[in-house]
């Protein structure tokens, strides 16, 4: 599951980029890492390098988003609640939120998850967040 580049099955290049100078009015919510307490999934990197990378990550996503969208809100993973996604058009998950309380009925619902089973708002997941957040909901964008 390690990743370097996107593989292509065509050699044809596409034409020049079109300038889009106006910002979109889509409302975006970024669920990001707290730089002081990042939720790092893989212990692959040296601690110092991890600290450096995760210290700047949420700001980098925020700045990219604010360059293209008029309304961008930021919340750290531990403070996110699913109802927040109702007030925006797209939620971008770069950090795993807290698990919801486990309901007492229903086999699928009994799996610990960060989002309710009927979560229906548009969500873009960065890397392993697809699996960590989506797998309990039956997402095919999973680890395996």
């Amino acid at each position, binding site marked *: 599951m390690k990743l370097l580049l*996107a*593989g292509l099955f065509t050699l044809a290049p596409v034409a020049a980029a*079109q300038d889009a100078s106006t910002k979109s009015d*889509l409302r975006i919510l970024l669920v990001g890492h707290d730089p002081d307490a990042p939720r790092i999934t893989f212990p692959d990197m040296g601690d110092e390098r991890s600290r450096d990378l995760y210290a700047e990550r949420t700001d980098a996503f925020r*700045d990219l988003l604010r360059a293209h969208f008029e309304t961008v809100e930021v919340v750290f993973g531990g403070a996110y609640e699913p109802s927040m996604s109702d007030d925006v058009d797209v939620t971008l998950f770069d950090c795993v939120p807290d698990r919801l309380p486990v309901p007492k009925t229903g086999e699928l619902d009994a799996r610990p998850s960060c989002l309710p089973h009927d979560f*229906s708002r*548009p969500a873009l*997941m960065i890397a392993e967040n697809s699996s960590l957040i989506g797998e309990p909901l039956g*997402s095919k964008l999973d680890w*395996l």
Partner: protein
Amino acid sequence: MRVDHPIFNTPHDVDLTIAPQPTPPSYASYPEGRDLGQTMPMWRVQTEGYQDGTGQPIGMVSRDAGFLDSPDVEWISSGASMKGPNAVAIGRHGNFFHWGFASSPTYLTDEAKLVLVNAIHYIARFDGCTPVARKVQGARIRSTVDSVIENLTDEGYARLALLYDGYRADGEKRKDEIRARIDAGEDISDGERRLLDAEPLKAPGRLDGAKRLLPSADWNAIGEDPAEAIRYLESIKPYLYPAGDWYALDVDEEARELGLANDDPAFLARIATTADEERSKRLLARYTEEAFESAEQWKAWHEENAARFFFSEAAGYKWLVDTRADERARRARGEYEPPAELEDLRPTERAPLAWDARIERRGDGTYEFIARVEILPGWHAYGSLPPNSPYKPLDASLELPDGLQPAGNWSKPAGHPAPADPGVLHVTGSSEFRRALKATEDFDPEGATVRCTLGFQVCDESMCMRPTSKTKSVPLPH
């Protein structure tokens, strides 16, 4: 990689830089990866990869097995990884979009940043489109049998043996490196010590994979002849279903009695219309998520949904109803609310291209003319054509009132190479024509209009509409 997907061209038409890169070694162990060659064309997403030694986090791809067996998904691109060439690095399932690359935007290429922004625009369309098929963890996909069968053949097993020869050689090389460090007086870890003591890796026995896949089969009766094992596996493949344990498959003898593959629509029809029989009741419970009480209810359910059934192995080998087929068709037809200032922007099957225009004041006597074009998914117009082409290209022209002049060239939709002919550029989805205009000092915009004529021809895979031109009068703001 689907370069024609909207995430690569809407709203930002991204100029993708493509270059040959070494084919990931893991691809060779997949049937679809064997003929890819030493290098393959790739698009760079990150400025640093996790293997560059700078400590970038690892991304994630999802295995493609079973991914496309439901109508609520999109495979957009694979990515260099330890999985196969068709793994999902960029994709969608329902209202969830997967961006498999783990680096922050600081380490994304400029192109990748725009594609990520486009992906946000794209997934915004799927509000309310929850997954129709929910994946069941631990359900082995039936195509695994094909891999096992291949490894039973002479050619397949020779390839497997060669792979293990390579593993063994790598293992011995690693041991030599550890021994050299010991000789140099270095300490080694417990793990490295265990590696030194480990037996060399051996290729599995020829029938080992088959026996591991189906431990419940009578392998004594089948014997050790690979040809017999192949015949057996091919005979039971249509009746395999999850046996309950993690990744275990077994033969559904009741489905086999019917003589119908459990993923054959005739199988569902047979059991749904005979729900008064005990065997059919058990099969319906096994292969659907419904729990009707009467045979009449089962029959009615089957009749009502006849055109919407699909079989998903990923969802646990279930017959499911595509409850979002109608909604997806509406979204595919582009039935959405256009911005208030562009009211006619609603393409239909009878008129697959819709357009409207406006003029915006830019200050200091300058304006910008903007024509927005919307093309129904599945259709395209032509951004560029070779000489003597019979098709009409998408083009715009203006008739300006006295006192107003163009102040630059047109910014036109860039388009993307046609799948069958790279010399032709298709324009699809949303696009714009823009042109700056400059007024003279004595120009009075009140009551002034600009006439814009858009010429175009739209085609889909099988037919073309007549070439046409449409003209609109656009008032200037004042």
